[in-house]
């Protein structure tokens, strides 16, 4: 019996390319909206359990019904028998859409010159037609936080959905001012500064951060007092954090830096999210006590120290979650954001567990970013960011069969798939000599 099953399984695998082809060769080449009924699936809602033999109705960009035996009406029916519906995954830290080819500076738009440039807008530089966007969304990642890099306050990050023709159409309703917390760590192998120099620079940078912060405070006080202010976009943007209009996304990784950052934000009455947090496991208790939510990753990463256990990065999210930290995941990637589900799987296998890992790429980031009313689970009333898969999307063998973003049905095609179609059986093949 087992043998027969295996044979069937092998056959199915062998036919998989054809299934994919059938998908891509399908009847549409661009995303289209409409009324869709995802019929008879196992629906993994994330927040309300897993529902078998359940259908999901998508209308006007939203999930309008979830239940058994929904009537299709005039909706386009998509048979999901034997398949699984999940909410679209959210990657909480990427440079997707802000770069085309990372070694070609002309195409790299995520890092502006200057140390204090909080007014640099990630949303401005999102290229809706970046090749990597099409490559990413067929993996089931429907939403990403695009984060600028650079100096102390490098810019303002923006959440985007991976469908739309203008940045505004893609905007997911969350922005945050980014801060690269002064670091006591090395930037990489080429960073050959002495320990002393690193320490000095970090201290100097900390002082600068304090000064800038005071300036922003003064700016806000003057503004609130009705004073006429000169055009000062940097302070204008920073003061939004002080006024709690925007949260501060603090990029911080080394254990001592994390502790310093906790202290630094403690007496500031602002919304704070930590990002990176590579050594979070070392200070997980402190993090939990602070109540600051954490976006961490990449999970598939080397330990930060030679003496660390080999799986330090794999296990980091799990250890923080166990201590009581609210954890979301990020790939910190550009072209390979599509690997978010695999990062999540590694976090799951090394301590986070599957259920928490799913939350870390859906409802947790939605809650951390304050957009849980619209995203992060399969619930009536939420935006229709949905994926339909042949199994667990964290598993590599699983195929993603349908993707919906804001109710738009996304064609499962991109350049990678088109090249596959063209070259699997190239014609002419081998030319006779």
């Amino acid at each position: 019996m087992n043998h027969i099953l295996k044979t069937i399984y092998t056959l199915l695998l062998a036919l998989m390319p054809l299934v994919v082809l059938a998908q891509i060769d399908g009847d549409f080449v661009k995303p289209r909206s409409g009324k869709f009924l995802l019929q008879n699936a196992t629906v993994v809602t994330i927040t309300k359990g897993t529902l078998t033999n359940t259908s999901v109705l998508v209308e006007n960009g939203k999930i309008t019904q979830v239940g058994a035996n929904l009537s299709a009406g005039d909706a386009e029916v998509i048979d999901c028998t034997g398949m699984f519906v999940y909410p679209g995954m959210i990657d909480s830290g990427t440079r997707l859409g802000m770069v085309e080819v990372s070694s070609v500076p002309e195409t790299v738009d995520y890092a502006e010159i200057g140390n204090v440039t909080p007014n640099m807008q990630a949303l401005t530089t999102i290229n809706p037609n970046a090749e990597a966007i099409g490559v990413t969304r067929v993996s089931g990642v429907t939403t990403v936080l695009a984060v600028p890099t650079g100096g102390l306050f490098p810019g303002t990050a923006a959440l985007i959905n991976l469908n739309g023709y203008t940045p505004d159409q893609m905007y997911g309703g969350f922005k945050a001012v980014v801060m690269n917390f002064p670091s006591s760590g090395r930037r990489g192998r080429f960073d050959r500064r002495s320990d002393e120099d690193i320490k000095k620079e970090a201290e100097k940078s900390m002082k600068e951060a304090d000064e800038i912060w005071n300036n922003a405070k003064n700016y806000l006080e003057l503004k609130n007092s009705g004073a006429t202010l000169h055009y000062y976009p940097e302070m204008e943007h920073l003061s939004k954090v002080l006024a709690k209009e925007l949260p501060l996304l603090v990029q911080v990784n080394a254990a001592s830096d994390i502790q310093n950052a906790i202290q630094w934000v403690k007496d500031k009455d602002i919304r704070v999210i930590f990002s990176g947090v590579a050594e979070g496991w070392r200070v997980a208790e402190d993090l939990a006590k602070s109540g600051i939510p954490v976006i961490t990753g990449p999970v598939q990463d080397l330990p930060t120290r030679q003496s660390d256990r080999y799986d330090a990065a794999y296990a980091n999210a799990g250890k923080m979650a166990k201590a009581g930290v609210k954890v979301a995941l990020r790939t910190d990637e550009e072209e390979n954001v599509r690997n978010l589900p695999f990062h999540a799987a590694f976090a799951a296998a090394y301590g986070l567990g599957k259920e928490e890992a799913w939350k870390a790429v859906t409802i947790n980031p939605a809650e951390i970013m304050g957009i849980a009313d619209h995203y992060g689970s399969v619930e009536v009333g939420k935006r229709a960011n949905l994926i339909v898969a042949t199994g667990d999307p964290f598993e590599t063998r699983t195929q993603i069969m349908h993707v919906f973003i804001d109710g738009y049905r996304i064609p499962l095609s991109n350049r990678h798939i088109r090249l596959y179609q063209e070259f699997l059986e190239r014609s002419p093949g081998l030319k006779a000599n």
Partner: protein
Amino acid sequence: MKKLIYIVAAFLGLGWNAQAQTPKGSVLIKNATVLTVTQGNQENTDVLVQDGIIKQIGKNLSAPSGVTTIDASGKYLMPGIIDAHSHVALDVVNEASSPITAEVRMKDVVNPFEVGIYRALAGGVTISHAMHGSANVVGGQNATLKHRWGAKDPADIIMQDAPRTIKFALGENPTRVHGRGNGIQPRTRMGVEAVLRNGFNEAIQYKKAWDTYTSAKSQKGNTTPPPAYSERLQTLADILDGKIIIHCHSYRADEIYMLINVARDFGIKKLVFQHTNEGFKVAPEIAEYTMGASVFADWWAYKFEVYYSTAFNAAILHRNGAITSINSDSAELIRHLYHEAAKTQRYGGLTDDEALAMITINPAKQLGIDDKVGSIEVGKQADLVIFEEHPLSSYAVPQMTFVDGVKYFDIQEDKDDQRQLVAATEMVEPIFLRADEEAHRCMQDVDAYFEAFQGAFLEEHHH
């Protein structure tokens, strides 16, 4: 105890051959799902290893006295993973001083203390191909390493019975380093071809000069002086004589096709392409003429020559009959090659055996060691990994890794800190926050050669 056996064995004179110094273990692994790769899967099966060699595969085997038994019920046993492209355990990577540096050898810069070896073992990797970097058209000779963690002599982690291999590189890296960086040929892909053809022609002349000398020498009263010896040209001559396998860093279809033509013209048959992102475009040619391609599972767009890539590359190459392996070229990725191989199931729907072959028997073929390793077969060297969950599952966790029957990784028993060597000057341990860069070393050691492109730009993602 193991050490004792080894010492006793050594005293008994069990092999006075070159490998006598490296430890060989005996172990009985019971009740595993054995993924042989070449001969199907066998459930609830035992594998008996004696003195580093797989002796028996079957059911209800019993351990000879003194041989440890490991219960692997519910677990998976697969051959040690082989990475055909790595820079782990190398102190330097590039000798970027000339477009041809065939004379340098990576085995002179092997560092057995690098913790990356242990981390690779923790990902089930038992053999890595420690390669020269990609700065030169003809780089140095690579070393095939066996991950005998704890060895102090570099020679003990070199797989002495592996054939010689050499690194070649086409495209952006050599043209940037030499053409744009130093103002010498090659600046273009045309120049790369010229460097290769000129080099091989020079090697032919060199060989002739020596042949002439050698035959003259046997004549009585001959006083012909010998030609000047050149390690560089001798190595190129050895390639022409089929004594060395070329492993060529390449991306674009045109340059791959070019090297196939050059190889044909010079009668070179031992040729493997590395990275080969556009290999899918010339898959029939690669399949027909070469020993295949060793590729990334899904890396693309980090530089222009990999912009027109597809994650389906491995599947297309494989389905066109090319020997295909998945490699890491990264101290990070080397730790989860089983997962990288599994991506061929998402991108192309390969079977379990096809996917596993990409990190075992296929790279073994490309390194010329498939008669010794790369599958679980009686008579092969006992490089083995025990997994919790199927190795192609995203949730798989390697449990134990064996090289020559000796256990070098055990998730339950190993201490966290595996450093064997801590510099006395290291007062505070450095923290590497962008470990990503630590991982990618293909263009390491190049910055010293030219100032114009110095900085992060150089070392970031230039595989």
